[in-house]
């Protein structure tokens, strides 16, 4: 099994040091070019623009997911039992939606002709959204991808944080209330320390997932409308490596991306390793 997992990585490194296009794919071996692929990628302005865009995208997505998800979890604690059961069931339903299905539903809801979003916003007097195109600019395109990604990620965060909240000792909260502490202070000084490890794990997992987003962005913006000005890292890699059949360069981008991801996942891996040692 080590071979199954290790081999792709070994192959990735070898490819990144080779000129490997369609001809090489047919002949089954590439020409060694040293670090040439890395050089061209690092000198490509599209790479840097994409990197900045992806970082901003990731921060926005993770921030929204974590804040709204935590608020939902706090809400779950405060509502009556039947509302909690109903809300949890709804969250699980959302959680289980396949991404490709969610993309199609989003396409339909945001349809400029008779999508329910334009109708609803106009009726609610948010503004005149008659035939509004939600995919006009790269910003609006990625904002729509954000709504889709955050919607899909919220259930996992909300339910997990709720589970962590149930471990907050009741008497501690009550004691704080009797002492006249405000709810914000109770949250910060009593609740937060208990749920902090869970939030940490969820945040680092979300960072990894959102940094590597592909399916939602690719399909919602539409393969025909994918251009350098709306690239995310995963899409840049796919376009450069696979679509243009420059596998060596694609491998170099993959490695750069994986190194960044690895740096970000240190927290998560270390925590899981500790679980692995406790037996």
């Amino acid at each position: 099994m080590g071979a199954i997992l290790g081999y792709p990585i070994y192959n990735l490194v070898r490819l990144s040091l080779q000129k490997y296009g369609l001809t090489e794919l047919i002949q089954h071996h590439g020409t060694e070019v040293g670090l040439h692929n890395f050089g061209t990628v690092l000198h490509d302005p599209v790479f840097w623009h994409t990197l900045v865009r992806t970082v901003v995208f990731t921060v926005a997505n993770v921030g929204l997911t974590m804040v709204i998800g935590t608020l939902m979890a706090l809400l779950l604690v405060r509502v009556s039992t039947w509302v909690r059961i109903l809300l949890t069931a709804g969250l699980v339903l959302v959680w289980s939606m396949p991404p490709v299905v969610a993309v199609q539903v989003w396409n339909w809801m945001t349809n400029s002709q008779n999508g329910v979003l334009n109708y609803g916003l106009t009726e609610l007097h948010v503004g005149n959204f008659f035939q509004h195109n939600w995919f006009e600019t790269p910003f609006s395109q990625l904002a729509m991808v954000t709504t889709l990604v955050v919607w899909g990620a919220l259930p996992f965060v909300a339910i997990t944080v709720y589970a962590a909240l149930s471990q907050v000792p009741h008497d501690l909260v009550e004691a704080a209330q009797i002492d006249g502490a405000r709810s914000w202070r109770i949250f910060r000084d009593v609740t937060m320390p208990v749920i902090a490890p869970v939030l940490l794990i969820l945040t680092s997992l979300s960072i990894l997932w959102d940094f590597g987003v592909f399916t939602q962005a690719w399909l919602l913006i539409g393969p025909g409308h994918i251009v350098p000005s709306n690239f995310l890292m995963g899409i840049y890699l796919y376009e450069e490596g696979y679509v243009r059949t420059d596998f060596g360069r694609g491998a170099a981008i993959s490695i750069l991306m994986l190194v960044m991801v690895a740096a970000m996942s240190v927290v998560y891996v270390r925590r899981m390793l500790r679980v692995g040692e406790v037996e």
Partner: protein
Amino acid sequence: MSPRTARRLGWNAVGMVVFVVMVFPVFWMISTAFKTDDQLNSVTPTWIPTHPTVRHFRDALARPYFWTDVKNSLIVVLVTVVVAMALAFFAAVALSKYRFTGRKLFIVLMIGIQMLPATGLIIPLYVVLARYHEVNALTGVILVYLTFALPFSVWTLRGFIIGIPKDLEEAAMVDGSTRLGAFLRILFPLVAPGLVATSVFAFITSWNEYIWARTLLNDSSKQTITVWLSYFLGTSRSTDWGALMAASTLTAIPVVVFFLLVQRRIAFGLTAGAVRG
């Protein structure tokens, strides 16, 4: 009404609003699938289909390659699940019962590979699969899904096996069972719930998978259902939204059913480190 009850009612109201907002897209998908064309094309939406029709479902099912691609998805998913479970079970036993050199590296590699974005591995795996002529073949896709399903399965099963007291196994052996006998009669039944949970998870991830299936499978007759669904929109300006939503509903049903069965365990597996530490 006491202020306490009033506050509870307020939170309940907020809870209901959140519920409606979150569930609306799913509701809208199902509701659209049952509407008549007049209701679909009108600018003023119909909220609940008053005269439900199953015509869109018939249209979706009649589209070319629907059944072929459902069959492909089922083949890929079932083979992935069966092979992954068999391999993962023994790997998990080895990992939790025996100490071997490179054990720690193995764990790091396993957790690490889970963390890698799938896109990062597309290029090297594509090249390897092309070398062995596994592009445009279901076997290639199955191999890829295994690399993603195995780490999670091993990790989750390992959690189940560790939970089993060693005395239980030893007691069976003292009673005259062979190692294999003890293994099968004691260990296996106790790990069974774990096997169910992980296989459902493997089922869901492979059923939902899109990038790999799209990249590796080119023929319409060889694609999986998610790829089929993604091409539905096509380039034409007049999309048959009713049929698209009907097809989406059909694609989601197996996942929803299986998901409801194991949701708790998946959440636990992913954050076990945090909750326990």
